[in-house]
């Protein structure tokens, strides 16, 4: 019995509940609707909510917990002998001896990684994909695969039964309570208000989820690599040894080269975006005739709407070769993944962002200030430079900070146009790497989840999150404070 079917049943019972509740309300009113406390539809909604909501909560909890619980039961059902047969075939000798020692002591024998591997094997077998499983272990883990299938089946059927019972129970109970004095509307509205509150806290839960997941994995990373080494180390080379005797796998996690690379590219981007964005905002709001504004605004909106992956492609296809050829023409050797190319394209991406924020801020400066200055005989540019911009300064600073935060967190342009090698340099003609590039390149591809290399991603993500968070909070504060002054 699949989950889709269960949810379908739930929706069906809710719909039936609505109809039954409504009909019953009309019936108990004896044809005189006015004697009811609420409109009949509210009685229907009341029954439908009670038939649907509790069961829906049950389904969600069940889905969240089902996987881990079933996995645990399946592994628990394996005998030590079966695990041993599996381990002898699948594990490298070192791990195997440790495992056999554990089995002898009857402790929790499998490490997390081995558990995952075993579960993948069992899952493949259970899904009928025996070709992905080593033939020598099929015999040993076949019972577990059968066990898994039967457990899944059982879980789905139990869920179906539980949902049916809960839903029907809620329906019957509320249905029987319907009488003209039942305050159905108030009940329904109370439930809906609570749902609204729940929805508005989801954003908070998202933030909490981000912080917790980053923090949790980062702490695991910092048990392997000291915080100080990560924050102040000058060497980044996240290759860790898979085998102990492997060559060239020192694993250095000093993130300074990534931070400087990120800042270098963000600086170049801001050098492009800040003047262009600000000047176009000034021109559009202070000088441009209506016609020009009507033409340029959509252009900026299109630039703002172009996906970053497109900018990345633009960078590698057009801008980087152009810059390399220009460099070659004046005798400079420029890397084809130079920070300059990535920075310029990122700047172009940020221009509309800066421009629209600055536009808002400039428009918020009261017209009376401008009129006063113009009336005293200042030219327009003098008015802008000496009156409008100083008045708008906090807002413009805020806009720039938001733009910097955008540049630091941008991923696709740098993934495609910047390099992978962590060079500690401030030369924009060389190739540098950034925090986001490293996150992407480490995570894409198959990884052991426990290695320091994979976990380092979360530490990088945490730094990224905190830095952008601080920038955003400060920027939003500034912008808000400033707005209140003139409103």
């Amino acid at each position, binding site marked *: 019995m699949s989950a889709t079917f269960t949810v379908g049943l739930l929706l069906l019972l809710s719909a039936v509940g609505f109809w039954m509740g409504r009909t019953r309300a009309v019936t108990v009113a004896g044809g005189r609707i006015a004697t009811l406390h609420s409109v009949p539809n509210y009685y229907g909604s009341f029954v439908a909510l009670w038939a649907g909501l509790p069961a829906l909560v049950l389904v969600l909890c069940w889905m969240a917990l089902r996987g881990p619980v079933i996995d645990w039961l399946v592994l628990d059902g394996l005998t030590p002998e079966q695990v041993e047969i599996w381990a002898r075939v699948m594990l490298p000798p070192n791990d195997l001896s440790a495992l056999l020692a554990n089995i002898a002591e009857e402790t929790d024998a499998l490490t997390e990684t081995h558990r995952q591997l075993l579960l993948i094997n069992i899952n493949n077998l259970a899904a009928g994909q025996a070709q992905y499983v080593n033939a020598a272990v099929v015999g040993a883990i076949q019972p577990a695969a059968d066990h898994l299938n039967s457990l899944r089946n059982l879980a789905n059927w139990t869920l179906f039964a539980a949902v049916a019972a809960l839903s029907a129970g809620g329906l019957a109970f509320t249905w029987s309570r319907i009488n003209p004095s039942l305050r159905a509307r108030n009940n329904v509205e109370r439930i809906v208000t609570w749902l609204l509150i729940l929805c508005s806290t989801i954003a908070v839960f998202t933030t909490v989820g981000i912080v917790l*997941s980053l923090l949790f994995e980062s702490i695991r990373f910092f048990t392997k690599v000291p915080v100080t080494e990560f924050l102040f180390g000058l060497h980044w080379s996240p290759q860790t040894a898979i085998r102990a005797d492997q060559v060239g796998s020192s694993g250095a996690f000093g993130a300074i080269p990534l931070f400087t690379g990120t800042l270098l590219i963000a600086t170049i981007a801001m050098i492009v975006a800040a003047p262009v964005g600000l000047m176009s905002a000034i021109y559009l709001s202070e000088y441009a005739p209506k016609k020009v504004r009507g033409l340029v605004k959509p252009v900026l909106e299109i630039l703002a709407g172009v996906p970053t992956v497109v900018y990345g492609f633009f960078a590698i296809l057009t801008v980087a070769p152009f810059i390399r050829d220009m460099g070659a023409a004046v005798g400079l050797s420029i890397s084809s993944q130079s920070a300059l190319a990535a920075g310029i394209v990122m700047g172009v991406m940020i221009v509309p962002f800066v421009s629209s924020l600055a536009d808002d801020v400039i428009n918020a400066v009261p017209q009376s200030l401008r009129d006063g200055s113009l009336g005293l005989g200042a030219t327009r540019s003098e008015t802008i430079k000496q009156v409008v911009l100083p008045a708008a300064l906090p807002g413009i600073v805020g806009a720039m900070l938001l733009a910097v935060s955008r540049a630091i*967190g941008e991923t696709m342009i740098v993934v495609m146009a910047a390099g992978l090698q962590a060079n500690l340099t401030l030369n924009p003609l060389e190739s540098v790497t950034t925090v986001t590039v490293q996150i992407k390149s480490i995570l894409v591809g198959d990884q052991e989840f426990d290695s320091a290399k994979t976990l380092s991603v979360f530490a990088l993500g945490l730094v990224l999150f905190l830095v952008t968070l601080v920038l955003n909070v400060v920027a939003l504060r500034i912008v808000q404070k400033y707005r209140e002054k003139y409103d």
Partner: protein
Amino acid sequence: MTEIAEPMQAAAPMSTSRHTGEAAMKRLRQRYAAERRFKIYGILAITFACAMLAILMFTLLKGGVSAFWQTEMRLEILIDPATIDPQGTGTPAGWDRGAFQTLVNDALYRDFPEVSGRLEKRDLRGLVSPVAGVFLGKVLDKNPALVGQTVELWLPTSDGINQIVKGGIDRDLPEAQRPINDQQLAWFSQLEQRGDVRTTFNSTFFTSSDSNYPELAGLLGAAVGTLLTMLVTVAISLPIGVAAAVYLEEFAPKNKLTDLIEVNINNLAAVPSIVFGLLGLAVFLNFFGMPRSAPLVGGLVLGLLVLPTIIIASRAALKAVPPSIREAALGMGASRLQAITHHVLPLAMPGIMTGTIIGMAHAVGETAPLLMIGMNAFVTQPPTGLLDSSSVLPVQIFIWADKPERGFVELTSAAILVLLAFLITMNGAAIWLRKKFERRW
């Protein structure tokens, strides 16, 4: 500016007054020069932005439009039952799919009987697509009765030939810089003279999914993946976003908690998208054990990503509805929820819809968080459900942009054109909605 400037220049030049003297005129000229310079800076900034968009569009169009055409060559193929059906089952199920390419190659050898020797034959095979057999297979699947006959078919050429015909690679380049050597070019010229070459609309691009061969690669899988992902995103973010906006705008008391929620939503809107990818990886994949690369997970992550945008837009739309509407409804005895659902929300709907479409357009182009949850899988079939492995358009673009073959450069540009067309349609719809239903109170 000019209307002020003219009378000034007409003033007597020889006056010694503070305001009209020589020094004053010089100052004035400098000030006007500064004014003109400042204006020119503004125009330059705008020109730069417009030029960048123009260059971007020009590059994409120049590189991408040709991908909508595909060069084909005519071959007379003898569909030998002994080759494709070695077991003699007589049913399509028993066909050896690998043998279709052999049939195509045999047809080519018959066309050029003078070619012999292993290396020469290999060069000759380089004319036709290495996956032409797949196209032959499709024809035979539709019409199994053709087995045993000789059929005349138009099959795609190899990527190198395709590029040369369409001008992506110059024929006159030195041999070493071409993927096609002189001998192959000579054979191909023979074909061209016989009229056995044509260029047709590349329908494969819209009907097939990812492939390692540019001739066989298409957008269908990624487009279906995008569609499924967006369905989940809308289903998550629209109801939750609107509900949150209604609560915060209409019900919430002004206190510390709602302040916190508000600050939090504003900050969430500015969190880098890749961090949402990490959230998806840590929570949905590792904690809840959802499948990698699935549109369901992608949709959930993007749903959380656009949630702040939708909440902010919906709040603005709700705020724009004048209080008199609410007061009138409340005065008639409606409850607050009734006033909102019956009156305020319908009036705010166009604004909410516009915000949602803009948020969705943002989500459609989002790549980084989807890479984190493994949506860069190599998927050769369109997904059929929310839990299937799938790709999406921007990720497909990213994957193709990484491939070295010339044909994929062209396909990448074409895929970007399709994506941009899609985005512009969405944004256009948003603008149309705003224009049509916007109401000034």
